[in-house]
């Protein structure tokens, strides 16, 4: 059963009651909210995502709630809470949806130490994963969004979830939060991309969420083997360049941008080292999305190993 099988009113009732269960890759989330505007958007953008069985374990119980005290009468605000605790300052109520999306990412990043978590977008073709480890602002979400609308499967735009047992990368194909200019870039790149409403003036500027193609959501239980590490950098007006990167440098860049490398100790070292062993490593500088998509496709086509 998927969210889209429920009527909008059912979604609103579940959110206001015991919670709406939703599965994002390896995580079951139970969401509670009494905001009608949130229920409508959740019904629209989460439609293809599966609903876990009633007896399933919920990894995170999250909630959007009005803050207590005088503040609730002074200004319309909403708090993100997990397990009853609110880790962030309240958001204006109009930003409830991005607040929930960021909050769920925060839960994954801070509470999932059974996996090695890289700060990386990940896409897949023919079972092989291409990882884009990058710091915010380097264009990984925009590039990733363009790739998944060009024949690649989305594993994640944010998390490279590496399973310690075998080093495979687990999918977590969540909505992709595009920011500022990237929103129009993707609208021009693929007019049929499913993009939610723009939220203006958030803590990260203007944000709009892209829903991944259905194939990526339906295949969220299919891991992939790491094959390429590509470190992207978007630079206005830059000529396209894709250059080999020394593996030692790639190791250090992956390890330092991991969410929990230091938590997992030797396990993390071995997982990152094995990933670097298995991958060809590149630095990508681009300004034109079409050119970047083409060169990455050629890279994958040329590698039949």
């Amino acid at each position, binding site marked *: 059963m998927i969210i889209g099988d429920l009527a909008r009113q059912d979604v609103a009732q579940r959110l206001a009651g015991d919670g709406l269960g939703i599965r994002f890759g390896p995580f079951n989330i139970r969401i509670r909210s009494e905001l009608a505007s949130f229920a409508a958007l959740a019904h629209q953008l989460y439609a293809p995502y599966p609903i876990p069985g009633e007896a399933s374990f919920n990894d995170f119980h999250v909630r959007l709630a009005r803050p207590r005290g005088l503040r609730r009468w002074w200004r319309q605000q909403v708090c993100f809470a997990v397990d009853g605790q609110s880790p962030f300052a309240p958001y204006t109520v109009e930003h409830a949806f991005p607040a929930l999306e960021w909050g769920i990412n925060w839960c994954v990043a801070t509470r999932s130490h059974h996996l090695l978590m890289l700060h990386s977008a990940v896409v897949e073709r023919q079972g092989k994963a291409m990882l884009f480890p990058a710091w915010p602002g380097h264009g990984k979400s925009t590039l990733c969004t363009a790739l998944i609308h060009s024949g690649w499967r989305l594993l994640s735009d944010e998390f490279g979830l590496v399973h310690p047992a075998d080093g495979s990368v687990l999918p977590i194909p969540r909505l992709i939060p595009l920011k500022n200019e990237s929103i129009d870039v993707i609208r021009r790149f693929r007019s049929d991309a499913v993009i939610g409403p723009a939220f203006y003036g958030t803590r990260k500027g203007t944000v709009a969420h892209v829903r991944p193609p259905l194939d990526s959501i339906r295949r969220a239980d299919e891991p992939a083997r790491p094959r390429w590490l590509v470190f992207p950098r978007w630079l206005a007006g830059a000529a396209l360049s894709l250059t080999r990167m*020394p*593996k*030692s440098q790639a*190791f*250090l860049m992956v*390890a330092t941008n991991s969410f929990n490398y*230091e938590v997992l*100790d*030797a396990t993390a*070292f*071995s997982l990152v*080292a094995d990933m*670097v*062993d298995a991958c060809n490593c590149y630095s990508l500088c681009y300004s034109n999305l079409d050119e970047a998509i083409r060169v990455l496709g050629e890279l994958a086509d040329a590698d039949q190993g």
Partner: protein
Amino acid sequence: MGDEAREEFLCVSRAAASGGLLWRSWDADLYIVYQPSSAETHVFNGPTAAILRTLDDRLLTLDELKSHVEQALGAQRGDLAEADFFAAVHRLDELGLIERVQAADDVR
């Protein structure tokens, strides 16, 4: 630096904290090393890695060690700059990977 270091480190050996090191190397003269005792990951150049590997379980004087390291690196005796050698020895000592023994005669 050389004379000062010679007084300070008459002999050196691998420290207990250097047990279980995990090594990877993909590029010439660069080694990525994980140290379980400190949960730190280090990047060592060739001479630094060679010092650790040369010492293994042995106790060596600094002159002996430098000579062995030069041999391991395929260099001629005296080719390894003293400043670089002692800087590497100091760094490994700071990391707790080697131990210094002040009075060589006491342990030999």
